């Protein structure tokens, strides 16, 4: 039997396990997937937990439920990847050899990278919402908060789901309005970027939303340290912003096993060919999802579009054909904007988010870069699509490459 080994059973790894199971002959190929956690978290749902829209239990299911029976699932940490020897050593002392390796080890928060962030204020008046634990802690805190200055701070780019901080602010504006304390809450967004978002056109439209919702914006702020005793964040060049409640988006980093294996860049992301998803260092190693160093968004939609290209390329590699260079950086994100409305953006490496209709040109039902109720319902329905279609590697009616039809320049 020949072997394909997948490291990580998050969104990207799970989709690949399902797709490989669908296309490879089971008498020739053994697919194995390794992960250290039993629980799959629907990460787009974490955003809704602090505002009591989802409960903590609404976003979790057992990982095992999404891995086909013929795929071997091993629950263990990963000690080291040894690509020269085509093998991986697990924390449980197992050694797995492979013909092809797919790295899908994701990214995680590294609050310890910022001086003072894990100090006395952590989980008291400093919270994050990118982990289940963090989102649930914040839910409890917000339930009893009577108001003050809330600062949302992106410490450093790149981050997972770059629209989530904006969505958090829009939902906070709505939530505090619902609670009847919006007049007692000052909302400020502090970002290292020159605007509200990474792409200029969307940044300007989203910036207008911030204005309209009376959310203050502080740009080009590179957080150097957090001072819990004085409740302020301090930039490397000495600027300060005070807070009563700090919502932090800490530095995002790839898994420590990437560093232990000497496979990563300075953030432990794996250098990857941007159109084929092959590792730059090893021919039989591929990288997908948040684990790559690609200049595409770290988001589930991106992992999904990448999987369409990667499944093609793994089959081509097996058949000795040249790889297709078809991944174009495509990302598609609903942006919850509060009060039951949302926006949608669709973009890739070269084309920034533009207005228009999606997925059917001129028809929709979703509107790009415009606030509508349909976009909000699209986002809420997506949880069902995620669990029932996307993770299981089913075809969705959206092609992997971005399409210009329906967009206006």
């Amino acid at each position, binding site marked *: 039997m020949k072997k394909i080994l997948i490291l990580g059973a998050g969104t990207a790894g799970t989709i690949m396990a399902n797709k490989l199971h669908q296309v490879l002959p089971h008498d020739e190929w053994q697919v194995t997937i390794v992960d250290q956690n039993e629980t799959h978290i629907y990460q787009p749902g974490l955003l809704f937990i602090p505002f009591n829209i989802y409960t903590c239990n609404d976003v979790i299911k057992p990982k095992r439920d999404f891995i086909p029976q013929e795929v071997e699932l091993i629950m263990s940490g990963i000690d080291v990847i040894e690509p020269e020897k085509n093998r991986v050593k697990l924390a449980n002392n197992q050694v797995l050899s492979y013909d092809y390796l797919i790295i899908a080890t994701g990214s995680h928060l590294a609050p310890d990278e910022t001086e003072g962030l894990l100090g006395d204020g952590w989980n008291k008046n400093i919270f994050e919402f990118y982990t289940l634990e963090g989102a649930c802690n914040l839910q409890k805190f917000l339930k009893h908060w009577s108001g003050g200055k809330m600062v949302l701070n992106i410490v450093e780019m790149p981050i997972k789901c770059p629209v989530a901080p904006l969505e958090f602010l829009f939902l906070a504006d709505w939530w505090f309005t619902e609670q009847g304390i919006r007049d007692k809450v000052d909302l400020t967004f502090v970002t290292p970027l020159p605007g509200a978002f990474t792409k200029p056109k969307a940044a300007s439209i989203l910036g207008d939303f911030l204005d309209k919702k009376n959310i203050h914006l502080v740009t080009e702020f*590179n957080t150097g340290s957090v001072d819990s005793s004085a409740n302020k964040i301090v930039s*490397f060049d000495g600027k300060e912003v005070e807070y009563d409640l700090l919502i932090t988006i800490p530095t995002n980093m790839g898994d420590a096993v990437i560093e232990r294996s000497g496979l990563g860049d300075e953030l432990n992301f794996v250098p990857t060919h941007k159109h084929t998803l092959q590792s730059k260092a090893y021919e039989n190693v591929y990288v997908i999802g948040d684990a790559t160093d690609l200049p595409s*968004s770290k988001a589930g939609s991106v992992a999904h579009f990448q999987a369409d290209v990667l499944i093609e390329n793994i089959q081509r590699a097996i058949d000795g054909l040249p790889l297709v260079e078809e991944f174009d950086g495509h990302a598609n994100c609903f942006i919850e904007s509060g009060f039951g409305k949302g926006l949608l953006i669709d973009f890739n490496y070269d084309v920034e988010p533009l207005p228009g209709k999606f997925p059917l040109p001129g028809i929709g039902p979703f509107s790009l870069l415009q606030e509508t109720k349909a976009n909000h319902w699209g986002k809420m329905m997506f949880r069902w699509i995620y669990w029932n279609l996307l993770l299981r590697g089913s075809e969705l009616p959206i092609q992997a490459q971005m399409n210009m039809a329906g967009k206006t320049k």
Partner: protein
Amino acid sequence: MPVREIAGVHVDFDDEGFMTNPDQWTEEIAKALAEEEGISELTEGHWKVINFIRNDYKEKGQPPTIRRMNKVGGIATKDLYDWFPQGPAKKAAKIAGLGKPQGCV
């Protein structure tokens, strides 16, 4: 693409004032560009940064991030902000004759 004379030679720039051909770069050009950026004298620290990012660019094909200058180049982030105030990654890349560092996503 605008061409202008700096330190006595004609050099290619993009619209944001970043050089488009790193091979045209000289130390004299660096000094002139630094002055335009409000840095009157390039100290030993400045040169350490400039040399690191030029070498790193040759290896990687893109200007390094602040984190990379810190982790790989051993340059303290605080120093970077002292030497190249307001956006050290961009400013240092500009003076070192490299393109604008890639934006994030």
